[in-house]
């Protein structure tokens, strides 16, 4: 093992793989600890999207009468909230992950990539639980799943990739600039309204659709509606724009992360 710093490091996936046991235990710890010492415990996993859905249904569904492509508004919103909350949660958690585990970073060596990775994976578990609520909701509204639901795993993977790509940038930036922590809530809010969560993308004028695709979450959320409900607003070329954006962000994020990695222990 020799260690001078390389200017352009490789991704280091092999090393991450060698440390997979650590990754496993970190994910396991995050899940175990998250709702410790709360009265409601795991119920929070369900309550968060359910409350959001109730609020959106009242404000946007009832009061503002936002059209929902003929789908009952609560279902319409909840289906979109699932991927959105997975994304928002993963981004927020991973952005703060490095700073939050600075005691580890300063005292032990392991590929730092494991830290944001583990928070994102831990987010998947919450998603799984709240997905069960969706099934209940569909049952309640007598909506049956269509074969297109088979695309769902791919979509979930895409959400995770998107969250990781943003999370890598933010977590590495956060090490040096704690501003990230304060920017994050605004970012999440603005991003949500730029994503067809409470409204349908069919409201977006056609000429803006391609630009809209630059927001990878827009395609994913509509994709979710399509996969679960069999219909959605508008989908098309924008999906590929989204994939491209995420791929670019992810590779850029990895490179940036790996470059900053060597200084984490000194700066954090």
């Amino acid at each position, binding site marked *: 093992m020799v*260690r001078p710093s390389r200017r352009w490091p490789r991704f280091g996936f092999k090393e991450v793989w060698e440390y997979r046991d*650590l990754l496993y235990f*970190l994910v396991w710890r995050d899940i175990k600890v998250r709702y410790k010492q709360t009265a409601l415990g795991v119920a929070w996993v369900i309550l968060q999207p359910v409350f959001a859905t109730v609020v959106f249904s009242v404000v946007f569904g009832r009061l503002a009468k936002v059209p929902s492509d003929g789908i009952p508004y609560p279902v319409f919103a909840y289906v979109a909230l699932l991927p959105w909350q997975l994304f928002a949660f993963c981004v927020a958690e991973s952005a703060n992950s490095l700073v939050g585990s600075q005691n*580890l970073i300063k*005292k*032990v060596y392991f590929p730092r990539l494991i830290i944001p990775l583990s928070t994102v994976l831990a987010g998947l578990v919450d998603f799984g639980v709240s997905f069960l609520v969706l099934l209940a909701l569909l049952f309640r509204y007598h909506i049956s799943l269509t074969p297109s639901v088979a695309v769902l795993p791919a979509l979930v993977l895409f959400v995770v990739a998107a969250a990781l790509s943003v999370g890598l940038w933010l977590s590495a930036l956060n090490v040096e600039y704690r*501003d990230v922590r304060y920017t994050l809530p605004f970012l999440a809010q603005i991003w949500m309204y730029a994503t067809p969560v409470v409204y349908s993308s069919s409201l977006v004028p056609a000429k803006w659709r391609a630009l809209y695709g630059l927001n990878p979450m827009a395609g994913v959320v509509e994709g979710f509606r399509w996969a679960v409900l069999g219909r959605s607003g508008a989908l098309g070329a924008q999906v590929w724009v989204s994939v491209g954006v995420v791929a670019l962000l992810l590779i850029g994020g990895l490179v940036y992360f790996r470059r900053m990695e060597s200084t984490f222990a000194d700066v954090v």
Partner: protein
Amino acid sequence: MSYIAVRSQGLGKKFRISHESERYRTVRDTLSRGLASALRFGRRAERRPAEDFWALRDLSFEIKHGDVVGIIGGNGAGKSTLLKILTRITEPSEGLAEIRGRVGALLEVGTGFHPELTGRENILLNGAILGMRRSEIISKFDEIVAFSEVERFLDTPVKHYSSGMYVRLAFAIAAHLEPEILIVDEVLAVGDVAFQKKCLGKLGDVSRGGRTVLFVSHNMAAVESLCNRGIVLDHGRLVFSGPVKEAVGYYYDSVSSTPEAESHVFDLAPCPHRRSKGGKLLKRIELFTESDRPLTGEMIIGDRLRLRIHFELPVPASSFNIGLGFNNVYTQRIFTANSLFDRSRSDSERVGHQVFVCDIPEFTLMAGTYSIRIWLDINHMEVDLIDDAASVRVMESDYYGTGNMPRQGAVVLRHQWYLEDEAFAAKKTPATACASSSTRVI
């Protein structure tokens, strides 16, 4: 099988210290700089008023497989930085280090412990953090639990543990790491004496197992007993590398050459290491040497040491005693003087300000620096105690007057040698000032 386990070549680590003006940045400033810096792909904004500080510079050494190396040096010497580089926690700014074998690092006890998790869960988590495989942890689980002595609390969250239990559990996990190269930093500073001994013993086992150990500690006695080689760092540079005894000696020489308050009067009021149960009654110590000269700087082996101790008796008392403990730099007690040991001292009842004199006609402790602990007992109850109340520095001397300087051991004692068939001659000349003095070594 003595191949090189660690080789370092010109290792250096630079930190950038920012200056005062920077501390009060405006938010806008921060944002624009952050943005600029991010855009320039992570390179820090070069315009900041900053200064380079080398925590380590030009460090080259080799460590053979199976060596147990103590890394010593004062605060800020760069010991921890070196360990962090060798464990890959941080990268060197220049130079390189080559390490052969799996490295286990123990820079802190209980890294990554989560307070909400139980002891059992933390063993798994911490083991993984330290680099153990899941299967490895599980196979050693029972051993770890037995070593930690916390079986009964295995399913209690560690936040309810006492600090002793916490440390024991944490060390137990670390101790069962089986790396080829073990890097340990000052972890023995925690825990009680019994536990420290156990840890030292475990570390000793590790090194006897033929593994390479790098050990940073301020406990020189531990370093000397565990290590066979020593590296001395001073302000980021390697100043000595060699057998551990010589390294420790080198370190002490370099420490004792630093100037200190050269006065024979030690005011006890500001002493930080004090335990007063009956008020701060001990006031001052004055040191004198041969022919009542104030003792400033150092004395030589065998000189007179006279201590004048000023103290206060709040209520009339006749049974009061003062003790003086002389500790060497390893914090080992070499000699204890106590007014209890002198029958001839007066036992009249006294009150108010007193001066008690302790006269040691021949202070025969070996060359070195001795820190003095002083305590006052009234009616056999300790009322005031101060650690590091004063110190004396003893220089080498030709104590026996033969031109052969005594260098080893803790004390010098007058003694005689004679061949039995010449016993007659020996009786005739009982050497100069024989061991007739009242100095006793306890």
